[in-house]
């Protein structure tokens, strides 16, 4: 059965207000720009967005932010979009800052069916406030809860129609782990191929994790984001 959908809004039909959505990418690199654009067109609000950054000012998730559709952001680096700080100072958005390795591991753990894990990262800092501390073999750890979302919007390079995925260079980043950690996983790709065209040894995300495939229409180029 092909998981490919032509229409972006059709692909995003599972998304509702108030949901938690994982969004792949490191800044705009590897971000699902077409699906984010679809979310911008869609009438939803009060979203919790889990992503390393909230885009750049006015671009990617930054545009969704400026529509006031994001109730809460969970990420590791909000400094790259000054609009996030401005909204935070005005009390218009909740933020949860996590170390980047904790953000990625919490998603990985969520996708692997774990409730959480202990990490040394952040021990003794302000980001450990309110988190359980435990000593294991003489070393202090803090407990971090896993993250599992309603929807993941991710970016890959190629998909076969079953949903097996391969990625491209540093556009991979959070995408493969986010593919494992949501009820509904929607991927946008540059190219959709027939089953058998991807080498099974080189598949990074097995199709079991993927629900829906769309073709990328917003592409990151040297000149910025352009429509295909």
């Amino acid at each position, binding site marked *: 059965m092909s998981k490919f959908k032509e229409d972006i809004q059709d692909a995003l039909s599972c998304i509702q207000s108030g949901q938690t959505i994982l969004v792949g990418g*490191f*800044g705009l*690199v*590897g971000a699902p720009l077409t699906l984010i654009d679809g979310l911008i067109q869609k009438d939803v609000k009060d979203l919790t967005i889990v992503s*390393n950054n909230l885009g750049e000012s006015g671009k990617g998730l930054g545009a969704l932010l400026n529509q006031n559709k994001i109730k809460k952001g969970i990420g*590791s*680096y*909000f*400094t*790259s979009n*000054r609009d*996030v*700080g*401005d909204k*935070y*100072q005005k009390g218009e958005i909740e*933020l949860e*800052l*996590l*170390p*980047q*390795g*904790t*953000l*990625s*591991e919490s*998603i*990985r753990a969520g996708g692997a069916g774990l409730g959480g894990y202990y*990490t*040394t*990262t*952040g*021990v*003794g*800092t*302000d*980001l450990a406030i309110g988190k359980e501390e435990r000593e294991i073999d003489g070393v202090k750890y803090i407990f971090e809860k896993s993250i599992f979302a309603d929807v993941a919007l991710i970016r890959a390079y190629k998909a076969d129609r079953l949903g097996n995925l391969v*990625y*491209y*260079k*540093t*556009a*991979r*980043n*959070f*995408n*493969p*782990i986010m593919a494992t950690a949501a009820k509904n996983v929607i991927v946008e790709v540059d190219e959709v191929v027939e089953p058998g065209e991807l080498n099974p040894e080189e598949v*990074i995300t097995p199709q079991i994790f993927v629900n829906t495939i769309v073709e990328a229409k917003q592409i*990151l*180029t*040297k000149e910025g984001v352009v429509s295909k």
Partner: protein
Amino acid sequence: MSLIKDKNEMKHLIAKRVAKELKGSLTVNLGIGIPTLVPEYLESDDIQLHTENGLLGVTDVAEEDIDPNLVNAGKLPVGESIGASYFNSSDSFAMIRGGHVDVAILGALQVDQTGIIANWAVPGKNIMGVGGAMDLLVGAKKVIVTMSHTSKDGSSKILKKCTYPITSTRSVDMIITELAVFKVVDKQLQLVELMPGSTLKEVEEKTEANFTYVEE
């Protein structure tokens, strides 16, 4: 007084000094800012550069070969070396947190006299980005901090105690500024080298933290 003319020259002076610390076969993670200049001065050809957004084997890239989907942690365009590998963010931080990275070179806003740094938040300002800094501090075998010795208003960034939120309870191993090189030994600062044009008197004047001078 220091002979440095401008900020760019200062950054390169620091980067060049950091490169002298990187000898032999090492995996090195470079932070944003001054650390990204270090590769220009590397002498060892057996150093693998790691970037936490998912590449081991970072090289520089010619203008005509820039690929928007191939960047470092500072989102600047880079290239891939022969023998490079790509991986997801979770594997990348397994390398960092798991103790597989030999050296991390980081920027900092403040360092205290026990070698503890603050580099992720300024209360009341829109600086809210921890990125991989906390993970690198718990995981990298050696941490070198690069920064200007003083802030814009001339006040010391090497303090008795950090006033900004700390990044880790782990002390860094070395601090390199345009004026001085400090080692952190048993949670105490040792001034081990004066940078070109710098004097002990100037370092003393511009350093709030207590330190000892150990000529190496």
